[in-house]
């Protein structure tokens, strides 16, 4: 049960973020929603990378008492961590772009309300 807790958090985060994107009208809140969904997905990736009793793949920094025989079985491939780092970096870029666009929209339209930011329609 306790091992499923991160996955439940993932689902909760994605649900909260999706709610913000679908039902909030403020563009900044939509940006926040996207960030929350992204955190949920990142947490998901990190949780997948957890191996019980695994050790970090750094040969010079092994925990004391590790014998060379158990290294192949215990050392963890750090792919999910690498994926998460990449996706965080991409997420920052996306968030920066959304926010800068929101600033420009506020300058031109005088509002951030998605109800009113709809000159392009039909």
């Amino acid at each position, binding site marked *: 049960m306790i091992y499923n807790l991160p996955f439940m958090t993932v689902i909760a985060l994605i649900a909260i973020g999706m709610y913000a994107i679908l039902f909030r009208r403020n563009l900044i809140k*939509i940006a926040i929603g996207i960030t929350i969904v992204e955190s949920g997905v990142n947490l998901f990736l990190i949780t997948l990378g957890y191996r019980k009793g695994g050790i970090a793949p750094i040969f010079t920094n092994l925990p004391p008492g590790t014998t060379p025989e158990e290294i192949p079985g215990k050392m963890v491939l750090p792919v999910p961590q690498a994926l998460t780092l990449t996706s965080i970096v991409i997420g920052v870029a996306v968030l920066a772009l959304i926010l800068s666009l929101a600033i420009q929209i506020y300058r031109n339209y005088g509002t951030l309300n998605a109800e009113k930011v709809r*000159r392009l329609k*039909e």
Partner: protein
Amino acid sequence: MLRTIEGYWDPILWIIAFIIIAIIAYIIRSAGRREHKKGEQAKPYFSGVEIPSDEEIHVSGENIYWGFVESLKGYYSIMKKMHAGRINDYVAWFVGISAILFVAIFIMEVS
């Protein structure tokens, strides 16, 4: 020659046929009366009213297919509601279609 299921499509052949038909059309046209000169024609009859200049009677963008749009008014009012330009709606359609697909695929699994 591009083979399709029950035939073929050859653009070169089509162009040859087009040229032949164009020549025939030209022959028929040139068989017409020659004594008609330019400028001799009377002005077209427009209910006895003076014909407005070209600038005034140019049909511009919005008025083309007016009848078509008018007869499909009901459809277009629904479409205009759908394309309201609200950013939340865009996401809602996307998430909604995925949700429908989720439901459909799990109904298929159960049945």
